[in-house]
């Protein structure tokens, strides 16, 4: 019934919400380069998968781009020095998601490239397409593996794993995800405007690597400039751009694939199951840089925004710079700042300490004011079903939260708790201010723990 209704109304995907975007705070801000901080701390685990072991020793001198740590595991990605400098003794840092990871600190050397040179090295300069046809698929995959490229949209899954051809699951389409559906964030938006060429080239290289014939970029329709820039940069290459309606969580893999290609990823499955590889725009640019220039993923664009920061900016930063470095570069917190979030305000983590390092998956820092963070008291569920209406996956969040609260895993399974992707639409919309997705999130973890015990 609801599927029919969706088709009738032409909905790109079921449910979803429209939080205030607030992207105008930073979407006019050209990407600036963060001056190299005195110390960068490079985590050995910045991805989904096995952590790396250091291959450098304290006091060793490294150049920018030198390998710092690697792993022999397939699902892993090496990390590299973002700056030239001297390796310090390794320590432990707490990432915003609460994970404690080993970090390799590097004392930055005095001699660093100018902002112009850095930009030219990372996203600027020429990106010729001539090499694409000639490139050997396996060579592209190894270059990506060697460059330590992971998904830069947030989940940080190692990209070479997605692109390694799998005879059982052939890929026909590479979907370039430029939706950036999280409110406030504009890093992908700026990248599409200022460096569309490496995105196009990287996507074509990825398609060559995995054997996909079609390359489609999906951009939300409130960023017409970005889609125009991509189209112009494609310059006749087989690179389509689709504009999708603006709705959170359009950038979620399942939603983008559904909206752009009309394919439904099975629950518990991957885009691969429907012949698609989804790559974030920044990931594509990193692929181009790795293959054409042999340079690893060491820098990324991070949006620092919100009404709680003095000067919102889009910054090109070295991986390992601390959140404090970025906040300081944006003039520091405003007096009414109330919450600092790593990532977007819907799915990001609030920070208790600003010493955590930026990783390959950090897309933004959002500083909300007391007025933005509405402190509402939780009241009783009145079973209005709004959470059901907005759930993009057609779940019943209120029941899942109840099951999680009571640790009733039979009920949780009956209502398909593992299908939840934790987008947070339910908690956003709940009139009773029940922390629905928070309960479901902890419930999923607990259920797994108890099943394992």
């Amino acid at each position, binding site marked *: 019934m609801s599927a029919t209704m969706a088709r009738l109304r032409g909905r790109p995907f079921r449910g979803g919400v429209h939080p205030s975007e607030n992207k105008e705070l930073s979407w006019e801000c050209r990407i600036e380069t963060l001056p190299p901080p005195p110390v960068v701390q490079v985590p050995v685990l910045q991805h989904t998968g096995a952590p790396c072991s250091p291959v450098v020793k304290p006091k060793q001198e490294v150049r920018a781009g030198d390998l710092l740590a690697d792993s022999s595991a397939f699902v892993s990605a090496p990390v590299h020095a973002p700056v030239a400098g001297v390796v310090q003794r390794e320590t432990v840092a707490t990432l915003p998601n609460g994970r404690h990871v080993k970090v390799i600190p590097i004392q930055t050397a005095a001699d660093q490239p100018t902002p112009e040179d850095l930009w030219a090295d990372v996203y600027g300069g020429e990106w010729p397409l001539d090499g694409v046809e000639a490139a050997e698929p396996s060579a592209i995959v190894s270059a990506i593996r060697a460059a330590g490229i992971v998904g830069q949209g947030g989940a940080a899954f190692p990209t070479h794993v997605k692109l390694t051809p799998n005879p059982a699951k052939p890929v026909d389409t590479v979907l370039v995800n430029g939706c950036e559906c999280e409110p406030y964030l504009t890093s992908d938006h700026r990248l599409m405007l200022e460096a569309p060429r490496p995105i196009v080239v990287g996507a074509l290289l990825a398609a060559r690597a995995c054997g996909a014939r079609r390359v489609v970029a999906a951009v939300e329709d409130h960023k017409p400039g970005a889609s125009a820039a991509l189209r112009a940069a494609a310059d006749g290459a087989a690179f389509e751009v689709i504009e999708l309606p603006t709705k959170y969580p359009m950038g979620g893999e399942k939603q983008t694939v559904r909206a752009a290609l009309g394919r439904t990823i099975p629950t518990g*499955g991957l885009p691969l199951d429907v012949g698609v590889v989804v790559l974030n725009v920044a990931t594509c640019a990193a692929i181009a840089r790795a293959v054409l220039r042999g340079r690893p993923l060491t820098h990324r664009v991070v949006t620092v925004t919100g009404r709680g920061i003095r000067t919102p900016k889009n910054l090109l930063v070295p991986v390992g710079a601390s959140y404090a470095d970025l906040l300081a570069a944006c003039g520091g917190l405003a007096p009414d700042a109330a919450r600092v979030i790593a990532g977007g305000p819907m799915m990001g*983590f609030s920070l208790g*300490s*600003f010493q955590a390092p930026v990783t390959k998956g950090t897309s933004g820092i959002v500083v909300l004011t007391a007025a933005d963070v509405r402190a509402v008291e939780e009241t009783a569920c009145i079973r209005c079903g709004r959470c059901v209406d907005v759930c993009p*996956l057609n779940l019943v969040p209120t029941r899942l939260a109840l099951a999680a609260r009571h640790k009733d895993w039979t009920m949780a399974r009956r209502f398909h708790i593992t299908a939840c992707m934790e987008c947070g639409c339910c908690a956003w919309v709940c009139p*009773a201010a029940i922390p629905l997705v928070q309960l479901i999130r902890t419930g999923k973890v607990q259920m797994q723990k108890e099943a394992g015990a």
Partner: protein
Amino acid sequence: MTRSPHGPVPREAAVTASAPAPVAPAVSVAPGPHLHAAASTQRMMADVLVGLAPLVAVAVAQFRQHALFQMAIASCSAVVSEWLFARMRGRPATLWDLSALVTGLILALSLPAGAPWYAGAVGAAVAIGLGKAIFGGLGQNLFNPAMVGRAFAMISFPAALGASAYVSPSLGIEAVTSATPLTAFKMSGQVTPIGPLFLGATNGSIGETSALAALLGGLYLCFRRTAPWEIPAGAILAMGAAALPGLAGGGTTWTLAHDLSAGAFMYGAFFIATDPVTSPLTPRGKWIFGAGFGLLVAMIRRFSGYPEGVMFAILVMNALVPLINRGTIPVPVGGPAPQTR
């Protein structure tokens, strides 16, 4: 300087230092999402009050001070009961979520103009106490509180709330000199013209006489998404389906339009059946619930001794909600979750 769990921390110190800085920044930490829609239970209840405004206006225009009297009695009784029962349960009274006021008003609008004061007062107290508090308060009750209160009052004071109670010429109001359209049709086959029936110039409970007012207020609720549109839609469709056999037989001059406009059908479909607490969670469940309600109303009107069936239809459907919820667990997009264990 701002407060944090670790005491006041100078904000500048926490942020500007690029060397290791103090651990505690002056900000709060909480799990995401960090934004919230401007929705609240109170806002939804206020929406219902706004939606009820046309019905209240018609009631007052038609039944004058008697309508005001019924609404005042039931609302006051509901709010006071809410406070009392919250105290008894040792819970803070949540009067400002307006839910008690809504219950009282819904009940009042379902009473005849001439009902004695104690019918509304006891009805509202029972609505809050037996209808809601005893189940664990707002959100926990199985049955619509207002309908529980009305059923209790109707059984306790049959003379004051039965069909005959609607005719009370002593009030000095023209509408209440004749039987309600449904009673007139049931008892003597007399068909009220559709015009007055739809606009609200007939006898009946103070809030039910105008189908137009209920439709206007109800559409507002659906537009605001405070009431799910699936329930009234299902109810109207079911009522239509129930009228089909009659059409085939050639039948009387009592048409589907009469059925939809008469009695509390529109009022019940838009305002009572849509009570979120006592209706199903999923869109499919809401369709079933609405259709069941419409069908039951048609059946009770046609085959039972009662002229009207909205109250019983609501209560019966309320009882079925857990079953409906169980049977309408939606399949996730992408199919059921694989069961690993």
